[in-house]
């Protein structure tokens, strides 16, 4: 049974459609990246999943239950870090961590102290004096110190410095090794690439891509850069070769092309035939995936700006 199973979720606010036929699933033990630009609907999806907002249509199951009707028993089994952490200004960080832990009832005191130390958080300070990053740490420690089956993390590192990000990465890896499920929403691609097995990419409330990282890489093109001594025309003419660029250098002609994975078998012999001197092939990063999906938005923006 899936930990999270969302199918055809639609949610509108007035005339705006925030979520449109969205699908999202997390299996037990899976770490799912949930990617999208600002305003894509990541936090709205999570709020529906937590029973804070009601779905307009579609089916939303959390541990097989209805998150709106059975919120309390379901929430016992998950821990949550909100995207924009708000705390009670008059309480200290330590008090808030304890309070949230007691609500759930599974907080481990030793683990709490260990996490406070790892994240270098001062638990004596009143919440009103914390910076954004420190507020985030409070929510992270409270969530990670609880013994949950599912961790829902909404852009959890957006206020953390790189050192603390590394600590966070470690902690999520530990959760993965223990077989916990994680839904990690982010717009930081490297973070998702480091931590997640599977990825769902959304834009304007719709899923534009979903699958394992390996699957998604399969769909993308590898960038091949080579210097050839002969005529590169045969290489450029292959099916599945995109965006060809050539440049004369001292050693010969530098050829840069993006190659569909399926066409690689035909491109390599063609390069050999043209007399290859140097060759570099770069695997697609999630960055490229992302740019492909949001690239048309960027292009539209740029052309608008040019006008």
């Amino acid at each position, binding site marked *: 049974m899936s930990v999270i199973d969302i199918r055809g979720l639609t949610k509108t606010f007035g005339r705006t459609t925030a979520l449109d036929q969205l699908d999202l699933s997390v299996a037990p033990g899976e770490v799912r990246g949930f990617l999208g630009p600002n305003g894509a609907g990541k936090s709205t999806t999570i709020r529906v999943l937590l029973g*804070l907002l009601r779905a307009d249509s579609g089916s939303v199951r959390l541990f097989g239950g209805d998150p709106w009707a059975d919120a309390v028993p379901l*929430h016992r089994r998950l821990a949550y870090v909100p995207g*924009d952490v708000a705390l009670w200004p008059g309480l200290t960080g330590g008090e808030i961590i304890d309070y949230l832990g007691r609500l759930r009832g599974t907080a481990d005191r030793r683990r709490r102290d260990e996490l406070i130390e790892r994240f270098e958080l001062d638990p004596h300070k*009143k919440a009103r004096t914390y910076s954004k990053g420190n507020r985030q740490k409070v929510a992270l420690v409270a969530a990670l110190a609880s013994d949950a089956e599912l961790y829902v993390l909404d852009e959890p590192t957006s206020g953390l410095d790189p050192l603390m990000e590394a600590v966070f990465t470690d902690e999520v890896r530990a959760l993965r090794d223990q077989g916990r499920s994680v839904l990690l929403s982010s717009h930081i691609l490297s973070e998702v690439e480091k931590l997640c097995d599977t990825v769902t990419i959304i834009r304007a409330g719709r899923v534009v891509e979903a699958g394992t990282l390996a699957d998604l890489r399969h769909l993308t093109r590898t960038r091949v850069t080579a210097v050839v001594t002969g005529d590169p025309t045969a290489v450029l003419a292959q099916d599945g070769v995109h965006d060809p660029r050539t440049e004369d250098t001292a050693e010969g002609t530098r050829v840069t092309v993006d190659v569909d994975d399926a066409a690689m078998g035909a491109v390599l012999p063609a390069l050999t035939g043209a007399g290859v001197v140097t060759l570099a092939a770069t695997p697609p990063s999630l960055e490229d995936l992302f740019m492909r999906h949001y690239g048309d938005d960027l292009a539209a923006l740029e052309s608008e700006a040019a006008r």
Partner: protein
Amino acid sequence: MSGALAGTGQLVRFILSRDRVRMSVWAASMTAFIAYFSVALSTVFDAPALAARAQVMRTPAGIVMGGPGYGVDHYTPMVAVANEGTLWMVGALSLMAILHMVRHSRAEEESGRAELVRAGAIGRLAPAAAALTTLALHLAVITALCALATFAAADERSLPDALALAGGSALVALVFGAVALVAGQLAATGRGTLGLSLAALGLAIAVRAAGDMIRLEGSALSWFSPIAWAQQMRAYVDLRWWPILLAPALGLVLVLAADALAARRDLGQGLLAARPGPARAPQGLRGPLALAWRQQRGVLAWCAVGMGLMWFATGTLMSMLEDMAADLVAGNAALGALFGTDPTGMSSAFLGVMMLFVALCAAVYGIVAAQGGPRGEESAGTLELTLAGPVGRGRWLGAQLVLALGGSLGLLALSIAALWLGTVAVGLEEPSLADHLGVLATQAPATLVFGALAAALYGWAPRWAGLSWLLVAATFVTGMFGVLLDLPEWALGISPFHWVAAPYTEDPAAGGALAMAAVVVVLLVLALLGFRRRAVVTGS
């Protein structure tokens, strides 16, 4: 200085455009208040009634609620306006000044907006200077309007006296604006600044009252309170200007002090720094009820102290009032309609009117706690954090409402107890403790209607939760002026207190109280039902 004040002009224009409605409402209300007061005293009171009122003004009760008693030997309508109205003018304008300064200095820092502004080409002192400048402009406009209104409305036409009455009050209010500026440097939060400033205002009111009670027309103690400086101008009696010079002098000292303090603190921090707290939560802090109590207890304690002292003091005044007011009512039909014409029931009737204020104070606490607290948590996002845990919506809102209505009820009981203790302290035996308990039993359900209505509105449509303040306004108007203005029955029925036995004058009957209790229960059930079926909205 020009560097530290850079950009003041821009900020002044920005504040004026942001607050134009708020400022116009204050100016119009103050003008209407002083004009109405002048007209009412000239028309409702004839010469014997004024003479009787002058007698009341010699008593402690009159001094506390009025002034030092200049001109009581020849009490004309405008002498009465100056003697009794100045305190209320100064009080209202000072409250306005404090709210304005907190809003544009400390609260801006707290919200983070000041950081955006200060990052621009804006000097360190510019926000405070702009707040003070706009306050001074606002007070100058109010002075002109009030002076003209008093001049036009009064039979005794004297522009210098009218100007002294309005201008003196405005200058004292400016002093309290400067007090708020200093308090803003000391406290760590906007709410703390407001509390400190209001405490200073309360102290000034108390010192003035005590000083004038020592000797009619003021003792040395009176002069320690800025409020006395406006009253000591003796407008409409024997006008003198020099006492009010103390106000700008103190104002200047306070502004310089605030400037010196500001140089020693960081943006967003106070000199009385937020102290570090415990690294672990106390054992008791488990569950929404415990957290809500932790959030509310400070405000509740201060309300309890304030209301307790106020109603105890009112209770102690009862013996004076009993002797003096009976004569007054006998000679004045309008006051008779308000207090009842039976001189022996005078103290009961007065307590009955006071009870409207007692119950409304407790009701206001209920509204603030039942709607302000939950709304604050929801828009800040801490509600989301709580509900993401295994906490049901009913449990969370229930906890908030238990404390809101419980606090409201507790304050009502405490206020009535303080009133009773006050009367006992001056040797009165009537009304008895049993009478007071009967009043508590009938007033309590009607008082809780206010908080319950706020809760129901919050449960269904949080944006409309402010509508519960309309009920407060309607209840006050119908309760104070309903009989006087001959309002129709349906209008009187808007007030929850209309449906229960009139306090101290009617026998407490169970029927109305039970009906109001039923209304409270229905509203609370509606609140919980509504809150369970609506979306939780963060950041609105």
